[in-house]
């Protein structure tokens, strides 16, 4: 039983995390381990400063908390502090993965699953260094605060990632494919998907041509559109960047038209997948937040501190990558909502443009970037040859206004490798996605 002191706000976040990693390189076992760690992160707030500590021996939580109390200054009015007033007092238990926990699946079964797919990576002679990775994570979180919040929930992801080097003569390509899910059985029966992805990539190696740089209409796949939404606008919606500059609130006034009228971008922590966060790391319950609705700025992402500073409500977006860091404002699952076209209708009006199918990475500030992996020409409304593109870029706000077509179907994706980086906290699992998105002009290099 934690003993909280009056005159301060405090909370404790514990995570019991199990993570299995199995990898093969060129058919040889490279890694096989299951790491189980229990850590806690302790926070104390006195109305002026936050005091944090990370704990690996959870029997020391009380001692650590008392040490932080001693460093802080007692504040009899702490409950009236606008930040503290934003903290919710939820009491809840949500265990969605108790009956399908990856902790209960023997490592041998996971290894056998991975091994069953590896031969598919060697079916084409151009593949020279195939590698396969199985990853899973099951976490049980427990959050308690001095206000009485007491939340327990679990989180689970599992997935497979395959990569291979492809080389034929002077032509080279690095192929990748991955599938993420929340249940182990979602990873079975993927042979045809993997084979099809490899075939597309070997075709790319053999037949892709360099792009002629310029400005073209571009169609983004759900993967590319999701990364675009995340990088181009999601990060701008994280309100902590507004704290340093008092003019920002005016600049980012809700109600302002900032994109095409067909564009809506939403964010929600209750979507199952990598970005599943039913309660954030300050105990705030997840909710669906629109960032842009029909082209109009309607919301932004908050933790308690930013919500108080901007006099808005918390949104359930305080997240840390693990119990060695404090929660900051982060995305959960971010996506563009669908439109009214099918894919053929979307590309039909394009005389000369490009379709970005998969990507290597993206980034976003005033200019966003997407580095495509697989990309194809669009010529006279039809998909054409594969093309090599190093990067597509554009001004975020200009591009938001140039979106002129969306398909009906929306795909939400979860990846098990990589993740979102922000300052010192890298590789936070997030979900993303959207429909196929047409942009009338982008800078293609």
């Amino acid at each position: 039983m934690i003993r909280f002191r009056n005159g301060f706000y405090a909370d404790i976040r514990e995570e019991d995390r199990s993570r299995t990693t199995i990898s093969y390189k060129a058919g040889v076992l490279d890694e096989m381990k299951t790491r189980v760690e229990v850590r806690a992160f302790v926070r104390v707030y006195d109305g002026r400063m936050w005091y944090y500590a990370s704990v690996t021996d959870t029997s020391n939580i009380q001692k650590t908390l008392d040490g932080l109390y001693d460093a802080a200054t007692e504040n009899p009015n702490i409950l009236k502090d606008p930040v503290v007033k934003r903290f919710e007092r939820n009491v809840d238990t949500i265990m969605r993965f108790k009956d399908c926990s990856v902790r209960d699946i023997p490592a041998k079964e996971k290894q056998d699953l991975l091994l069953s797919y590896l031969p598919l990576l060697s079916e084409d002679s151009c593949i020279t260094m195939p590698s396969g990775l199985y990853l899973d994570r099951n976490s049980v979180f427990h959050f308690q605060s001095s206000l009485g919040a007491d939340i327990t929930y679990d989180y689970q992801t599992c997935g497979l990632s395959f990569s291979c080097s492809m080389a034929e003569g002077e032509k080279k390509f690095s192929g990748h494919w991955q599938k993420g899910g929340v249940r182990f059985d979602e990873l079975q029966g993927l042979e045809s998907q993997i084979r099809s992805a490899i075939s597309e990539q070997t075709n790319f190696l053999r037949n892709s041509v360099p792009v002629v740089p310029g400005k073209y209409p571009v169609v983004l796949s759900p993967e590319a559109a999701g990364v675009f939404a995340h990088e181009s606008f999601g990060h701008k919606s994280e309100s902590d960047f507004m704290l340093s500059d008092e003019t920002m609130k005016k600049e980012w006034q809700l109600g302002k038209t900032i994109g095409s009228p067909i564009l809506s971008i939403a964010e929600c922590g209750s979507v199952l997948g990598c970005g599943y966060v039913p309660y954030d790391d300050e105990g705030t319950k997840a909710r669906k937040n629109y960032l842009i609705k029909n082209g109009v700025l309607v919301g932004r992402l908050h933790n308690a501190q930013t919500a108080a500073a901007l006099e808005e409500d918390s949104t359930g977006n305080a997240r840390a990558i693990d119990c060695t860091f404090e929660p900051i404002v982060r995305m959960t699952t971010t996506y563009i909502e669908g439109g009214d076209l099918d894919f053929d209708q979307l590309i039909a009006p394009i005389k000369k443009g490009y379709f970005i199918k998969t990507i290597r990475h993206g980034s976003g500030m005033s200019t966003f970037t997407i580095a495509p992996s697989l990309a194809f020409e669009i010529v006279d409304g039809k998909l054409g040859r594969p093309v090599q593109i190093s990067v597509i870029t554009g001004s975020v706000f200009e591009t938001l206004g140039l979106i002129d077509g969306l398909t009906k179907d929306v795909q939400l994706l979860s990846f098990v490798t990589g993740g979102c980086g922000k300052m010192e906290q890298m590789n936070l699992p997030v979900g993303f996605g959207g429909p196929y998105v047409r942009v009338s002009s982008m800078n293609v290099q």
Partner: protein
Amino acid sequence: MDKEFLTKTSRSVTLNVTAGKIDSFREKEETTSTVRVYEDGFVGIAGSLGRPDEETLTSKAKDALELRIPYPCALEGELDEGVLEREVRNEKEIIPVPKLIPTMRSFLDRLGEECPRFAFSNKIGLKNEDAEYRNSCGRHLVSSTGRLSINLIAQNRGSGNLFDSAFGYSGDHFDEDALISKFKEQYDAFYKDVDLESGRYPVVFEASDLMGKFLQQFVGELYVAGASLLSGKLGQDVFSEKLTFQDDMNPYSHPGTCFFDDEGCVAKNYRPTLIERGRLVNLLTTKKSSSQFGLSNLGTAVAPYDGVPSLGFHGFYLEPTAESLRELVPGKAIFVVLASGGDMTPDGHFATPVQMSYLMEDGRLVGRLPELNVSGDFFNLLEKDYIGASCGDPLDNSRMCAVMMDVARS
């Protein structure tokens, strides 16, 4: 049975800065222990948080041999000088922890006065790391290092941007006047808009920002697979004679770095070399990949405390060819502060947007450039277009390099 032991302890104190004010204090301490045992071409690994009983951990590592993870036993005993032990301590107290908050408050207040139109945020931290490696061949290495990191992002008030510029320092001393002066030079140039015709220009990058984009090409496994642009070129003079490229594991030029890798390897001058005077002399390897593919082991492996060693890289070091930026690029050049999101096509065409850069004339920043796109070919950039590298900034040893690139307005 051959064995090796690795223990690491890190202690850090981190301040968060919002609007130029410190609003949080975070303290972390963590110790991890690793035992690796080798038998019949396999490795067994056990790791733990804290310092558990060594025999218990060794017993767990022996049990892990059952997983049959192939790994060559290539433990090394004597160092080049014929000794088994070495201790390198670069752990002077930079700022006493109790004085960190008042010292940084004063620094941030001064910085705010000197740069009033910028709003500063992000992190300031002190970190100390100790590492100890022992193996059954008798090698015993001890490292103790510390560094101060100041990573501030700056918003030009009213710009509406996430951030507009970045100021950084990482080193083993704190010289407030010198830092203020350095940051102020950038600040003054930020508010002088300058323009540039599209064309070819010398472009100055921090070494990590340019070479980091190319590091994948040096991966040994990709090299032998024929999937690297460098495949088949080991031992050949493929780059400019002015280019020597090393991993900086020297704690005196790269404070905070351990002088040995996670497999207990120690390089000459603590800087394993990939390119020496234009010649590709090594690739990124571990003991496993070097043995598997008949390559030299570079000695830069990193390993999770409970996992198999993998490829690592610690710091980008380019042999200086000039004493200063002024000597390196006399006349006009583009000084890149932020170039994010670029990449290379499979045939080696590199392109990146430059979100933030300054026009530099004779080594001085004279004004802020608009957003640019820069591009070039991998081999040309490191051969005929490679201009050279300057000596480290006297303040923090950061290496700057210059290459000729195609530059266009965004």
